[in-house]
């Protein structure tokens, strides 16, 4: 093991995969000469050249579609959105095209494309640049949706996403790029299967399910609660479509209580989906209603004090766990 930043882990995944398979290319705004808006692709242009690291004009619908079309005929594109907020102008390419082609063609075409980039709120970038897009894309059959929290998961899951035969929506945390964490050594290749979650912390009193940045909020809350004598089990599904339902059900059957922490809005989304699955499959095991700690149901405000109010906090998670454990 060695310590890497989240962005370095993502970069390593791309380098290793591009070394392995020359059908893989990276395309997006500022990915080449500028070295990446968030420096994830730093050095890739020098290593792989302009043929495989391709700067585009500001035309998300255009280059997302080029990626889908190239994947249909045998290439393996990585399409970077500078942020996922900008994917909305390419919605049609992802939803009407990428997600539909395999079935619409009677299974005769496939679309091994990865769409990746930073997701979620950063710091005071206001309402148009602060979306957590997981609810939009998880609703679509035909897409994989992955949202890694740690550098290790970022690398192992991106490698799996690049090797996947289906379109993958890969949601990186905009505020996680500098986070450091243990990653296996370069000679120990780790490909983390899509659709498999992880028990990040074991505990017997309450299950906390969290993904992406709120994973860290959940871990902090679990630490605080442990000091007070409540042992939480933190489950990170890592992939949101397909969901590792069994892992979450198993945990709830053990703890009998469950709190979810997510950065997307409360209306629907994977948060509500997970609650639905647990209530159906672990109904007799629940000792309290499942609670959610989501972003508040408002467009993201600019002011710091309000932004902090909107996003899930450690205290809100602690409070929710106390409510379900009747503490």
């Amino acid at each position, binding site marked *: 093991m060695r310590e890497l930043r989240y962005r370095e882990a993502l970069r390593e995944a791309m380098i290793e995969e591009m070394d392995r398979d020359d059908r893989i290319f990276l395309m997006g705004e500022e990915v080449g000469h500028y070295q990446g808006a968030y420096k994830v692709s730093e050095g890739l242009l020098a290593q792989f050249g302009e043929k495989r690291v391709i700067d585009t004009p500001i*035309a998300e619908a*255009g280059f997302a579609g080029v990626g*889908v079309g190239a994947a249909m005929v045998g*290439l393996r594109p990585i399409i970077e959105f500078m942020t996922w907020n900008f994917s909305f102008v390419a919605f049609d*390419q992802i939803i009407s095209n990428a997600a539909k082609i395999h079935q619409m063609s009677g299974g005769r*075409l496939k679309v091994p494309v990865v769409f990746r980039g930073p997701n979620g709120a950063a710091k005071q970038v206001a309402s148009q640049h602060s979306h957590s897009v997981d609810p939009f894309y998880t609703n679509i059959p035909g897409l994989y949706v992955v949202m890694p929290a740690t550098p290790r998961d970022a690398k192992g899951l991106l490698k799996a996403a690049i090797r996947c035969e289906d379109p993958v929506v890969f949601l990186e945390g905009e505020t996680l790029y500098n986070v450091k964490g243990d990653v296996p050594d370069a000679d120990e290749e780790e490909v983390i299967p899509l659709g498999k979650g992880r028990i990040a912390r074991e505990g017997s009193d309450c299950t906390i399910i969290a993904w992406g940045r709120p994973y860290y909020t959940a871990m902090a809350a679990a630490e605080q609660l442990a000091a007070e004598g409540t042992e939480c089990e933190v489950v990170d599904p890592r992939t949101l479509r397909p969901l590792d339902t069994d892992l979450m059900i198993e945990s709830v059957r053990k703890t009998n209580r469950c709190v979810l922490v997510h950065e997307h809005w409360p209306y629907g989304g994977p948060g509500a989906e997970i609650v639905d699955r647990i209530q159906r499959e672990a109904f007799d095991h629940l000792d309290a209603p499942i609670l959610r700690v989501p972003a508040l149901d408002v467009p993201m405000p600019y002011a710091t004090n309000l932004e902090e109010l909107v996003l899930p906090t450690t205290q809100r998670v602690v409070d929710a766990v106390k409510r379900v454990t009747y503490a």
Partner: protein
Amino acid sequence: MASGRDELLAHYEKMFEIRRFEEEAARAYAQSKIGGFLHLYIGQEAIAVGTNAALTDDDYVFQTYRDHGIALARGMSPNAAMAELFGKDAGCSRGLGGSMHFFDVENNFLGGWGIVGGHLALAAGAAFKSKYTEDGRVTVCFFGEGSTNIGGFHEALSLAGLWKLPIVFICENNQYAMGTPMSRTSPLDDLTLKAQGYGMQGDRFQGYDVRTVQERVGLAVKRARRGEGPTFIEVETYRFRGHSMSDPAKYRSRAELEERKKKDPLVIARDLLKEAGVGDEQMDEIEERVEAAIDACVKFAAAAEPAKEEVMWDTVYATDLSTKRGAGR
């Protein structure tokens, strides 16, 4: 000359096949054997057949939802096409796509796309792959004049022009975007003026004589294959039917339609063949052969197995993933 005549005969046979296929599809639609949307290509056949004749089997072709003509021109069997319209497992998309989503990977016909402007970037992606792998293929992308105002059109042409992709964009200007004439949607009469904005060649001609289409598209295909970049072609044409089966086309006059029918590509081809000395007997032979094939395809489609539930589940993902185990389990 004889080879030119034989080629024209083959083109005529294919155009006649497309015409008769669609007339029978319209009949089946009226009998509720076909559902959903059915957009007919009747009147535009010379463009599909002429373009296909300018391509190799390896070249890629994309089309809008008005896709029966080019699919048949590319070599799809009428059986697979009609079975798709009937929603059968033997259909070209196993009954999962329908009229708007024909696919024929073996003949490099890459769809039938339902969102106006949405498939142009896909076609640019296929052309990107040809440039990336230097496979020598050219991509042809058809769309209507109604597509030329939406963002997807502009972004695809911008990228194709910027990267000099081996692609030919063919705008089939059939005069009406659903029910709206171009005079009410575009400030331009000549759409090829747009080509300049994307740094690409433009060409513009009438698409009633299949030989003209073959020749002019052929020039653009050669240019693309030589690595000289894309071409934007505007072909004047006319659809004799409404936008789809549900459209009685009240926005145009009977007189206009009758005037346009004088330029029916099948009539033009038939006259040319007569001039070239092809006798009635030979024409009858062709038409009988086509009639038999079309009659057979309707019977085939009617008798074929319905679309299968397991295929529906198994084709959501290419990877082995049971989607039945989703939200509704």
